[in-house]
């Protein structure tokens, strides 16, 4: 992504200012042949420092905005950047093909893998085609079909989660959205091959979980994962759509908070200005994470791996028996 077209979020305004100044200086340099390189370098340095400062102090709601950034790398970017000879599968063999989920196989650093992810669009046109990454039951069934193929040939499965949620629509209900998600959750708990789940942007509730059960659950540093959107939570509990900041805080939907709660295994570091600021770097980092974890999970005997997967979820929850707090 070239810096020229970068879209700035509200809280990134200081960065936009600096960038504007830099381009003006460059323009002057070009037109009047003035040597202002020192100034430019200083401003570039300032840009980096300011970026670091802003991104070190993001609020929950700001992270929601970063996670939803229109220029954030998508599933297709990671596939393009990491998978060689990608072969995409289509259709659930029952009703249709769902472009909101991409599912296929290919070579990842010389190993065969299956890769499945929600696909948000990069522009309005693609967003309409991809339904903003909101899957229908067909999408979940296609995903499961590809996981079964991966299981048959012992390919590790990597899923990339990036969705506002499953599609809330009449047709989706008619074709049993609830069962499509329930089946995937259940079957993923038993698929006999390693599964790595990475939340790359927005982990929207059941729609995310429909491809989100696995041995390793990682989140990109500024991604979010939540039981309900901040907007939904705000309107139900606060009776006010505008209470999104409060809702984002209350829901504890950021990566560090979820790691602390023991619901995810690892946080994958993003470039200092977020994944969208340097997508190539992000793609490499994600690739390294996948490589490391495939190696680790592949070394575990499959039954032991499944038992571990089961136990992990069996133990999730906080409750109290009489006066004794138990995890």
């Amino acid at each position, binding site marked *: 992504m070239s810096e020229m077209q970068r879209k700035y979020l509200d809280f990134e305004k200081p960065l936009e200012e600096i960038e504007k100044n830099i381009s003006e200086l460059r323009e002057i340099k070009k037109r009047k042949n003035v040597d202002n390189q020192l100034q430019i370098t200083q401003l570039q340095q300032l840009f980096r420092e300011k970026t670091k400062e802003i991104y070190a102090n993001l609020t929950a709601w700001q992270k929601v905005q970063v996670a939803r950034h229109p220029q954030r790398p998508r599933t297709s970017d990671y596939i393009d950047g990491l998978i060689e000879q990608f072969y995409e599968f289509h259709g659930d063999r029952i009703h249709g093909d769902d472009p909101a989920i991409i599912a296929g196989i290919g070579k990842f650093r010389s190993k065969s893998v299956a890769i499945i992810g929600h696909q948000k669009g990069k522009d309005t046109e693609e967003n309409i085609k991809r339904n903003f990454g909101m899957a229908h039951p067909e999408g979940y069934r296609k995903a499961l079909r590809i996981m079964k193929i991966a299981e048959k040939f012992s390919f590790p499965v990597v899923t990339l989660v990036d969705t506002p949620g499953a599609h809330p*629509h009449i047709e989706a209900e008619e074709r049993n959205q609830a069962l499509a998600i329930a089946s995937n959750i259940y079957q993923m*708990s038993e698929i006999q091959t390693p599964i790595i789940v990475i939340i790359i942007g927005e982990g929207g509730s059941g729609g995310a*979980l429909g491809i989100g059960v696995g041995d390793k659950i990682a989140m990109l540093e500024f991604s979010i994962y939540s039981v309900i959107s901040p907007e939904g939570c705000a309107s139900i509990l606060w009776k006010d759509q505008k209470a999104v900041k409060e809702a984002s805080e209350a829901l504890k939907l950021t990566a560090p908070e979820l790691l602390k709660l023991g*619901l995810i295994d690892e946080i994958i570091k993003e470039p200092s200005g977020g994944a969208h600021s340097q997508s190539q770097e992000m793609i490499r980092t994600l690739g390294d994470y996948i490589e490391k974890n495939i190696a680790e999970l592949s070394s575990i005997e499959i039954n032991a791996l499944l038992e571990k997967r089961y136990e992990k979820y069996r133990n999730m929850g906080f*409750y109290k028996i009489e006066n004794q707090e138990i995890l």
Partner: protein
Amino acid sequence: MIFRHRKRYIPITPKEAPDIKKDLWQKCPDCNKLIYEGKLKENFKICPHCGYHFRLTTKEWINLIVEPGTFEELDANIVSVDPLEFKGPKTYKEKLEEERKRTGLNEALVYGRAMIGKTPSVLSILDSNFIMGSMGSVVGEKFVRACELAMVEKKPIVSICGGGGGARMYEGLISLMQMVKTSQVVGKLKKTKTLYISVLTDPTMGGVAASFAFLADILIAEPKALIGFAGPRVIEQTIKQKLPHGFQRSEFLYQHGMLDQVVPRSNLKQTLTKILTIFAPSQ
């Protein structure tokens, strides 16, 4: 005639006047007609005009399908904590306190041993009166324990499910993970050949529908129950039009092949008894 004397007041202890009007009539939420409460109770809490099944409490469910005196509750002392220290207009602790007082329940899910007909069974009831029957850590844990008990004691499990709230917001992502916890145990039920019957009642939505509620061997629903994944209001906002009448109701699901049967409450015990008998090991 003029009498001049001091007025005498007789002190009386105020007695609570019997409130004749209150609670005597109920309005059907489906057809809006008024129903005499006594009539409603006689009729399994089914609206005599339109057949809408009023929501039952846990106690009423037990009375409806369990042989008298055979229900033995387990793990009633597992209670919710506030893992997120949820800060909303109401805190989670306040909400829990309020719901406990209102419903007399400790949590939304109650389970235990029960005789259904002649079959010793495990019965789990998710009560939609307690925070909309939403699933948090306790609901997840207790449902899994109910399944584990069924497996150990080689009994079928019957789940009555009114989970209108889906995953419980107050527990954030922890509640979403209960979907995995309660779904994966279904695989164990399969391996141990444990029968799992799910009775869906009004309402069963979201994370509850999209996990354990829909994964049973046999799926039964009460008439006119609201069942689905996305809430009707959310769908209306998305499609920007009114939903057709009967959408996401049991009959709609049945027509679309998602249920085995829609069973009126008056026949539920009989139906469960029949199914349990078929699956019971032959003598």
